[in-house]
């Protein structure tokens, strides 16, 4: 019995720490590296250029190239490759299951037959165009998700919110976003602590059934507690003079390095657009 239980236990603890690590990895934002040294505003603009280039392209090669650029940027920003890949590829199964895989078959994408599958008496035909569409789709998803993730992990969360404000996103929206972010963090924290508390009270040999009961009983109180905590944190921010517009330690300064970087990405973007027209 203990084997199965351990598996559940490890997977809960692992999932929690993974979630926390992946959403709140502020450690990369504070490291020294290329992307961290850029002005957040310039960084956001250039990343938007990259992502729109990915969305416009109809070539697998170009989106793979862009993906390679993204990985190189991650490398030069001291981001742990394994962590980065793990974090971005997690999105792929979800997308491909619902969109990419159906697309390879002739039902959805008619075209030249590549090969035929026989499954449960059903004749499934995979088409060349279908396969191409699916591969293009997957490379685009992975490349754009990677850029988005890279931006979020190499930029401090407060800085990102400030950039959104600078770009004219309404205050209410930015504030809500900030609250959500903190809320999720606190929620995870509460889940983790509750989990430890259960473990310390019941012992490691928690029976599977019993564990389920405790968890079910706790879910509602979890929401409650994290809501309460969130409110308390908000109060603590108010108490120190927060008015909804976070003031940052370093005010943004655009350096010549930022201009050079902006220049190159813009040129690159224009070239890609030109290539796409043909």
């Amino acid at each position: 019995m203990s084997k199965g239980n351990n598996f559940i236990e490890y997977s809960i603890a692992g999932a929690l720490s993974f979630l926390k690590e992946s959403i709140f990895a502020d450690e990369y934002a504070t490291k020294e590296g290329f992307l961290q040294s850029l002005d957040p505003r310039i960084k956001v603009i250039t990343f938007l250029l990259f992502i729109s280039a990915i969305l416009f392209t109809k070539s697998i090669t170009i989106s793979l190239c862009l993906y390679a650029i993204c990985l190189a940027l991650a490398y030069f920003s001291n981001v742990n490759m394994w962590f980065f890949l793990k974090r971005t590829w997690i999105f792929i199964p979800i997308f491909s299951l619902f969109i990419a895989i159906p697309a390879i078959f002739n039902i959805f994408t008619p075209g030249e037959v590549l090969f035929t599958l026989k499954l449960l008496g059903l004749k499934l035909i995979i088409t060349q165009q279908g396969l191409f569409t699916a591969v293009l789709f997957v490379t685009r998803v992975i490349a754009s998700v990677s850029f988005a993730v890279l931006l979020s992990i190499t930029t401090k969360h407060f800085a990102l919110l400030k950039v959104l404000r600078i770009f004219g996103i309404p205050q209410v929206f930015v504030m809500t976003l900030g609250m959500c972010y903190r809320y999720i963090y606190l929620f995870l924290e509460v889940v983790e602590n509750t989990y430890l508390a259960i473990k310390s009270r019941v012992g490691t040999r928690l029976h599977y059934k019993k564990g389920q009961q405790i968890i079910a009983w706790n879910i509602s109180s979890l929401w409650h507690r994290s809501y309460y905590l969130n409110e308390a944190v908000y109060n603590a921010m108010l108490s120190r003079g927060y008015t909804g517009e976070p003031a940052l330690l370093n005010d943004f300064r655009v350096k010549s390095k930022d201009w050079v970087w902006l220049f190159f990405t813009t040129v690159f973007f224009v070239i890609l657009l030109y290539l796409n027209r043909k």
Partner: protein
Amino acid sequence: MNKVIFELRNVCFSYHGKFPALRGIDISIGQGQKITFIGANGSGKSTLLHLLDGLIFADKGSIKFFGEELNERCFSDANFSRIFRRAVGLVFQNSDVQLFCPTVKEDIVFGPLQLGIERKEIESRLERVTSILNLNNLFERSPHQLSIGEKRKVAIASTLMINSDVLILDEPTAGLDPLTARHIIDLLLQENQSGKTIITSTHDLHIVEEISDTVYVLGQEKNIVATGSPEEILRDSRLLEDNNLVHIHTHRHKDKMHIHSHQHLEHHQ
């Protein structure tokens, strides 16, 4: 006496309208005073401190800050809110809620940055506060990953940075090692010497005498059951026992406080 800062009249508060937390509090706090609230768990100490910090508002009765009534409306005035936040600082009982920035350093400078204090001034305060509390080596750490005592020190630092005239501390020495606790008390006394008002809540009777000139005892009924100088209150062992504050007997020997545990009963006879 000095100017009155806070004036509370028959203040009642209940959470969500159904969990009473304070019942009819009357106090006035003057500038430069050292006030301590003591009382059992759940007697409403934290609630009272949050009311004083303008985070929650009385259901009944009134709280005045320099003669102006505190309510939600006056905090929607940005000007008032800034003045108030600069004047009053609170160290929360739970440091986890107080620390929310990615690094300790950012947390420490959060307050003064929000309040628009000049960069130079922030730097000099930062130097002073961190050298007193010995926090330099924690600057780049994430506050969530510190020990409870370290978190509390960071929380205290982040409030001290505001350099407010009124310092409210919710159990400032809980969980601290004796030397650090000593440093913090010395720091508070020093701040008080320079004219600041210190308001604390605590269970730690050892520090009450030093950090207060007036002690309020909050009873199980969530009202104030006794007020007096620390000597008066600490001498009243009945009162302290009734309010879960001692399971040990307290009495005086030649003008010095002694605190004995129950085992030394023969000592009393």
